[in-house]
Structure formats: C-alpha cells, structure tokens
C-alpha cells in the first residue's frame, strides 16, 4: 500500500503571535515550528497502517527550504521518503494544486493529511485535492481501518458519528483519536538523514489570495472569580455588570 501524507510546517501551539511589515507578514522571530498537530495524527496512522499491511509512506510538504527540519522529523517518525514542493504555501487552492500534481504521479492508495492546518485553520485543502483528482475526500476522520482495498471510516458529524466504507484511493482529513502521536526514536533520527528528500518545483505560481493585513483578536479582559458558594453575587454580576440576564 502506497500512502502519501501531506504535512504542514506550523508555529508551535505555544508561540506568541505577532506581525511585521505593517502587519502584512507573520513575525517568525523566536518561533519554533512543528508538524501540524492534525497532520501528525495522519502520519501516526499511516505508520500504523504500514506496520499492519506493509507498503511505503511518502511525506509531502509545500514549503520553502526552512521547512526541511520539519520534514526530517516526519522521516524520523517513520516515513520512507519525502517530497518538498519548493514554494511558499500562499493559499489553500495553490497548495491543493501542488499536492494533486505530486499525488497524480505517485499513484497512491491513500492520501492522508490533517483536517486543517493550525496556522490559518482553513480546512479546505483535502476537499480541493479530492476535486482536482476526481477522488472522494472525507473529513474529519477519527477512525480509519483498511480491509483489502476497502477502508472502514468513522468521521465526526454534527451531533454524532458517521460510519462509512470507501474504496481506495481517497483523501482523508484526519483528527484525533485516529492514532496516538508518535515520538521518533534515536534510530529513526539516525536514519532520517539518509532517507531521500526530493525538492520539486511548483506546477505554476497561480497564487489566488493575497494578505492585505493581519489583526490580532482583542485582548482577553480580566476575569472575575466568584466563590461557588456565593450565587447571589454571581447573579448580581451577570445581571448588573455583564447585563446578560
């Protein structure tokens, strides 16, 4: 089974977010980057599926050279090879086009990625890749098991879960609890450097979205803590200060 796992290179969840160049660019100073947490689940499930069924895992990132340490980590976790499309991931459609272009050449049985990145949280790429490739796309996938050429899937829907069976190939946007995040081991780290990492040009530079300005959300206001025994005060504050009652 050939699995393609698409990963994003995103600021660590504890990073302080600020902007430069007149609030048009993200300030990368002192920011640590990680594999997108949802992509990490997708990669972890891919490693498990490979252990169960054999095959190979290719990890794909659309990004500039600075993303290579993140890609190496994915190789250390268990991917066999990596491809980096050498381009800034400017918008969802641009990224989807790059993924579809690589995926068409690789004839993958499964294309896994996170349900969304955690920088822009668009959650659009998996559906766009599906459309571009004429393949089904499912998200957010919480359970993914393979039997023969069929996948048994559970995905989260409003107020419940949806169970489905799907023939491969298809695209899945993954989330917990599809697998437990994997920590690379020392052997994985040692071997990551010798695994192939190809750098390829983007298919075109058809960037469709441009950032005019970033704005931070308003700062959180101070919190008033009310003793659980003091319900009168709570009601009074909700009524007269917050004016929500």
């Amino acid at each position, binding site marked *: 089974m050939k699995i393609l796992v698409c990963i994003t290179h995103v600021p660590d969840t504890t990073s302080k977010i600020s902007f430069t160049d007149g609030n048009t660019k993200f300030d990368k100073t002192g920011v640590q980057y990680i594999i997108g947490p949802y992509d990490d689940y997708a990669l972890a499930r891919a490693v498990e599926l490979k252990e169960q069924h054999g095959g190979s895992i290719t990890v794909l990132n659309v990004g500039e*050279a*600075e993303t*290579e*340490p993140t890609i*190496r*980590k994915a190789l*250390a976790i268990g991917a066999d090879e990596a*491809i*980096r499309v*050498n381009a800034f991931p400017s918008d969802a459609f641009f990224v989807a086009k790059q993924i579809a272009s*690589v995926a068409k*050449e690789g004839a993958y049985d499964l294309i896994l990625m996170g349900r969304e990145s955690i920088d822009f949280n668009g959650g659009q790429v998996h559906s766009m890749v599906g459309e571009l490739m004429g393949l089904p796309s499912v998200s957010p996938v919480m359970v993914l098991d393979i039997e023969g050429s069929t996948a048994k899937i559970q995905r989260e829907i409003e107020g419940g879960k949806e169970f489905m069976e799907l023939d491969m190939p298809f695209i899945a946007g993954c989330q917990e609890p599809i697998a437990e*995040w994997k*920590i*690379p*081991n*020392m*052997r994985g*780290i*040692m071997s*990551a*450097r010798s695994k192939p*990492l*190809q*750098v*390829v*040009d983007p298919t075109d530079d058809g960037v469709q979205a441009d950032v005019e300005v970033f704005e931070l959300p308003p700062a959180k206001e101070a919190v008033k803590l009310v003793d659980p025994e003091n319900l009168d005060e709570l009601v009074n504050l909700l009524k007269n200060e917050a004016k929500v009652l």
Partner: protein
Amino acid sequence: MIDVKSAETQLTPHAENQRMIAEMIRDFGKREIAPYMMEWDESQEFPIQVFKKLGELGLMGVLVPQEYGGSGFGYHEYVTAIIELAKIDGSIGLSMAAHNSLCTGHILQHANESQKARFLPKLATCEWLGAWGLTEPNTGSDAGNMKTTAVKEGDEWVINGAKNFITHGISADVAVVIARTGEPGQSRNGSAFIVERETPGFSGGRKENKLGMRCSETAEMIFDNCRIPAENLIGEVGDGFVQSLKVLDGGRISIAALSCGIAEGALDAATAYAQERHQFGKPIASFQGISFKLAEMATKVEAAKLLTSQAADLKNQGKPMTKESAMAKLYASEISVEVADEAVQIFGGYGYTKDYPVEKFYRDAKLCTIGEGTSEIQKLVISRELLK
C-alpha cells in the same frame, strides 16, 4: 514530469540530530515525566517504567553501536539528550546518564567481544538496567583502599564487601563492580567484574533518603560470598582502577551535561517568571536587580555548555580529555548550584514552595558538585594535569 533538485538547506549532521533529539525528549517529557515528577520526588519512587520507555526510544544506549542494539550516536548527541532530560527532571537525567556512561560505558570501553555481545544489547534497550559500583562507605575518592575484595577460587571469583551511593543499587539487573584483587594501597590492586542480579550472594541494601535527585535510586550493593564465573572479569586482573578512571572521564561529561540541563531549566523558569510577575505595576524583569541576575545566569549557562561541548568534542575524536572533562564538570556543577539558587531568589517566596519548579532544581543541582568526583577532586585532577 517532476524536476528533482537537491535539498539546499542542510544543517550539519550533529546540529540536526541534536535538534531532533531535543524535540523528541521534550515531547516525551511532557507526556511521561512532567505530570508525575513531583509525586515521584515526594515519595522517592524510582519510576523504572520511564527508563524502559527511554530504552524503547534508544536513549539507554546512546553511545552503543547499532551492531550491539544501541543508537550509535556520539557524545554531542548524548550531551543533548542529558541536558534536555535534566531541564525537565534532573533525577531522570541522572539515572539515564549513570546507566549509559558507567555500567554500559565500562562494558563498551573495556569488555571483550563475547562480554559485549552478551550484555550490551540488553543494556542498550534497557531490558536490563545497569549499575556501577566503585564507591564504598569508607572510600569514596580514595578508591585504592577499598574493602570489597575478589578472590580467585578455581574458575570463579568470590566477591565480598559492600558498595554505597550506587545508582540503581537495588533495581539494576546487572552491575559492573570494582573489587580489590591485591593488597590495600598496592598499585594496580583493583579489578572490574560483571555481576548479574540473580547471582547468589548479590543483593541490594539500604536505599538513601536524599536531599534531591529523589526519583533516581541510590542504594547499597552487598556482596556476601558472591561467586561469579571467571569470564566475568573485565580486561586483566589489576586493570580495574585504570579502566574506572577512563569511565569517569566520560562520566564527568555526563554530570557536566546534567548540570547544564538543571541550570538551563532553572534559568528558563526564572526568565519566564520574571516577565509574568508584576510588582509596582511592572514586570520584575524590568528592574535591573532582576535583569542583571538573569544576564549573569544565562552567561554562566552558556559558558558551561561550551566547556561541556568542548570535552564532548575531544571524547568523540578519541583525544585525551581528562583535564577538559574535569573542568566542564567542575564549572558546570558549581554554576548549576549558583543559577538554581538565583532562580529561587527571583521567584521569592513562591520559589521556596513546591508549587513552582525552582526549589527542585535547587535541590537536584547540589548532587552535581559531589557525584562522580567532588568539585575538590576535579580541582585535583585539573591541577595534576596542569603540573605534569
């Protein structure tokens, strides 16, 4: 058609490996150590399960070549691993370092091929936990006068005596033990032996109740007519102390790294707190009394890391590093205590409580000026090297 180009940005192999190892340990620590460490510290529980997991990750055989089941890395990666563990919990770092550099390190450096093939794969994966016994109740730094003896009887050695302050003295599955095979005070009177836990006459003794490093087990090892096969002698009779000094040269790098990790952990905690804690309407970091403290602490940590890295570099190249490893151990351990002390001071009253991490760094740091050769012994080693 995909146009293939070579990857243009490559960190040096050391730097990239070190970055990934550091990240791996931070991820592991968040999940497996940080939530429980204060409980272990309070109860002095030795969390053996953590070391089994570190073994699965390849951290219990960092320096052991892959053909013996280890990770096959060098001292730079080893130092990074200890620093990152010690930034979370010094006592986990201490036990990991003792297993790697003392017991496993002794067998790796001095044992014959058959002994290596027999013991290293189990030690490198932590299927077996290791201990190393040199210190005795009355002979710490004065190892030549040790009381533990080994006497040859036919095809066996019979060991009698006791070792104390031994990391994993109770829980180890295998120990390398230095015993006297000649007369007290005689030169070359010590030999090194491998003793397996199941050997009759070998037992763990009293567990120490310590100031810090409380979840690293420190205990006696007792030998009462303990008979081991002759093939468990490491090297030749009389080689034990020379072998031990070489093991301790590497061990000093471990303790230097441990000290750097504790100091850096305390510095990070104090830096974050100084920016969060407000007095007189400003973060306390904006007062020069605090910011200058942080500057001095950070400079000391950086200098200690550079000395440690220098010793690691020499060790990797197989060059003499007795003086440099002693300097690294001396300086890093002393500044670790100073930095942790200042961190407690920056936290003020909160730093004196167990609700914040710095009191533990403070307690853990003190071991580093004592274990694997006191600061005074390091000065002796350095001065002897200078005055040769």
